[in-house]
């Protein structure tokens, strides 16, 4: 153990503890900007680059960055001495001297860590006038890069390389010209970017943001010739409240439906309904492959991989194209919803598909890209017209002066608004496969499940595995969240050493609850855990908890689709993948 003194208070810490952690352990918060640590997730960014966390170490000539300075025996640290405060203000002033002062119209204003820091340090004037970076803006289907707002904290680079192993972003060039960019400074849409949005989720400033589609949605809502319907993804209801200063993990399903109705959506539906539909298709596909495998068919592709996550789909299309026949062909819930809305539901309303506008509310920025994929459109009219993030929905609600906190709880509309608990848990890592197990088990064994909660599939570990007994047949299930973890399972499949029958993959740490379109967590993993608990509690409180028992799903098959994997279902609910390597 190491004894040191921080701001005249004695502290005892383990060897290897940084000064930042040591101070934090006794309640002294040293301001940081580039540093970010997601506790329990093994995700940390500490390049020691921004110098905001500098502290005075007695006996040392220079100030030391607390995030990368290890505590040593007998060390005496001053975290907020006048010398430190002066240096900190200078550092932030220097950062601001090369930062556009357009806070008034910046997408990140109010959520910007640099803005907060300038405010915290009481900076009212920037004494340093010098050259300003002028780097072109890069717009892709999902993410906008405004590199002039980059402070080179390198968090995005860490997420993109170490956590997601996508490897699109790197620091390039030198000195004043240094920027974080894709190879050859190409635009994101030419790169292998998956649009997972984890770079956006951790960016402290407005350098990386989602493509804002609120304007387009407002125009659609104010167009009397359009019927505008909305679907809401499972993870949104567990996080939207945070944007209105509600405690993390507060479920706002009813208020969200009420708010959407007040915004003028003609029908308020639920992506959870489409999640149940996904289970019907994906579960049937899984059982089909499993039965063939059991009967000794050597050509059957196992394990089956889930295909709900668009960033994951793009990841394997770029990085593992040789495995593109392994994932389920089932479209994601968002796209299943869009396809059903623009056929089944449009027919019910006697509308042409062009007269119906489908808006999704997603915890995700990749969903914007997914909805723009050509195969998810007919004659140039997309199945899903606009995909807003949770944050964008909050902006719309604020814009319409809706007092979210006092809204009554309202229900979704029918027929695309009913869902089972299985549909709800799609929003967290482990949820899709648990939902699939609940249905596949009963179909496979012909017996009711003895229990509904599969604790062995839940949790936050990046890689998890469990064996579920299908009445004498052991089914090995793997779960990965974060694309770096997914890569490990894919390498096993490639090498022919995978032990699994089915694998669930979600790109974002935590699954959709930690999606790139969710309210900013600012490095606080507790928020993700609370959202996860909220999702499971919504499941627990549902009357129907298995997808195949959702009465509106049954009706949809009776009235329209026939049965799972039917020709019509294939046409509307399944897709194919492309080699993008």
């Amino acid at each position: 153990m190491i004894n040191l003194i921080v701001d005249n208070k004695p502290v005892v810490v383990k060897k290897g503890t940084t000064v930042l952690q040591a101070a934090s352990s006794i309640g002294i918060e040293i301001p940081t900007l580039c540093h970010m640590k997601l506790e329990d997730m093994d995700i940390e960014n500490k390049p020691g680059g921004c110098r905001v966390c500098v502290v005075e170490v007695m006996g040392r000539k220079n100030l030391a960055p607390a995030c990368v300075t290890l505590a040593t025996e007998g060390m005496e640290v001053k975290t907020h001495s006048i010398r430190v405060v002066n240096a900190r203000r200078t550092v932030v002033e220097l950062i601001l001297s090369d930062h556009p002062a357009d806070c008034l119209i910046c997408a990140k204003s109010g959520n910007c860590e640099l803005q907060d820091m300038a405010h915290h340090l009481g900076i009212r004037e920037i004494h340093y006038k010098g050259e300003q970076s002028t780097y072109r803006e890069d717009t892709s289907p999902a993410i906008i890069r405004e590199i002039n707002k980059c402070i080179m904290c390198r968090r995005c680079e860490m997420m993109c390389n170490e956590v997601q192993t996508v490897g699109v972003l790197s620091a390039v060039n030198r000195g004043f010209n240094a920027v974080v960019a894709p190879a050859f400074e190409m635009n994101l849409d030419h790169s292998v970017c998956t649009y997972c949005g984890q770079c956006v989720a951790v960016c402290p400033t407005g350098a990386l943001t989602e493509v804002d589609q609120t304007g387009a949605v407002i125009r659609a809502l104010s167009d009397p010739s359009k019927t505008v319907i909305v679907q809401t993804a499972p993870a949104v209801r567990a996080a939207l409240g945070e944007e209105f200063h509600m405690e993390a993990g507060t479920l706002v399903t009813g208020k969200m439906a009420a708010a959407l109705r007040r915004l003028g959506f003609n029908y308020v539906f639920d992506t959870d309904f489409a999640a149940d539909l996904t289970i019907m298709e994906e579960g049937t596909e899984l059982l089909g492959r499993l039965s063939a495998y059991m009967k000794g068919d050597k050509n059957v592709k196992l394990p089956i991989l889930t295909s709900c996550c668009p960033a994951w789909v793009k990841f394997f299309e770029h990085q593992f194209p040789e495995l593109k026949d392994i994932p389920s062909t089932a479209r994601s819930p968002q796209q299943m919803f869009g396809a059903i809305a623009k056929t089944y539901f449009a027919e019910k309303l006697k509308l042409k598909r062009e007269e119906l506008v489908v808006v999704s509310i997603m915890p995700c920025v990749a969903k914007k890209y997914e909805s723009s994929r050509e195969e998810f459109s007919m004659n140039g009219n997309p199945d899903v017209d606009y995909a807003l993030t949770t944050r964008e929905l909050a902006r719309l609600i604020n814009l319409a002066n809706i007092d979210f906190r006092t809204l009554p709880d309202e229900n979704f509309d029918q027929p695309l608004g009913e869902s089972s608990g299985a549909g709800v848990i799609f929003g967290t890592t482990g949820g899709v496969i648990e939902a699939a197990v609940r249905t596949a088990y009963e179909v496979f064994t012909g017996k009711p499940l003895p229990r509904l909660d599969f604790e062995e599939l839940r949790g936050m570990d990046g890689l998890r595995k469990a064996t579920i007994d299908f009445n004498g047949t052991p089914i090995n299930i793997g779960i990965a969240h974060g694309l770096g973890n997914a890569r490990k399972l894919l390498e096993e499949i490639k090498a022919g050493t995978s032990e699994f029958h089915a694998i669930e993959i979600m790109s974002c740490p935590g699954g959709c609850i930690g999606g790139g379109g969710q309210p900013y967590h600012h490095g606080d993993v507790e928020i993700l855990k609370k959202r996860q608990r909220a999702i499971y509690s919504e499941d627990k409180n549902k009357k129907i908890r298995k997808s195949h028992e959702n009465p509106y799903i049954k009706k949809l098959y009776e009235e329209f689709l026939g049965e799972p994997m039917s020709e019509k279902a294939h046409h509307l609910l399944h897709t194919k993948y492309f080699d993008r390597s």
Partner: protein
Amino acid sequence: MPKIKLAEKTIELIKEICASFDNKEGELINVLHQVQSKLGYLPAEVQEVIARELNMSVAKVYGVVTFYSFFTMKPQGEFPISICMGTACYVRGAEQVLSEFKRQLKIEVGQTTADGKFSLSSLRCVGACGLAPVVMVGEKVFGRVTSPQVLKIIEEYKEVNVEE
């Protein structure tokens, strides 16, 4: 991502160089050095092969290439001319020598003459400070260069045909 359009021979050469460093990511700078010395420059396609061989992202390779001024993505002249701008050379008039090269060749630093003969770059200290100011043409070192000597050096290489 641009598809790789290099000659098979060039790809093999890059693979050999990477293999000679055990395809280790940590050897990237050495690999880049050797490949540039063989090919003269490091175009995008070359960086993609290196990234694949060393099992790292091409963005990281590009990051290193753009960080060090020694590496270049533009083809160099037959005779790359480098003028040392290190402290010793600088104080003994390297800047005047450099401007004389620019004037004679009608190019700026980082450019190549239209006939592809000469390219111009500046570098920092070649460790021959006793000979300051130092000019390198390819591997050959010229010491105590003065502005009037510049034209003579250029003329000397204009005669040479590299194919012979």
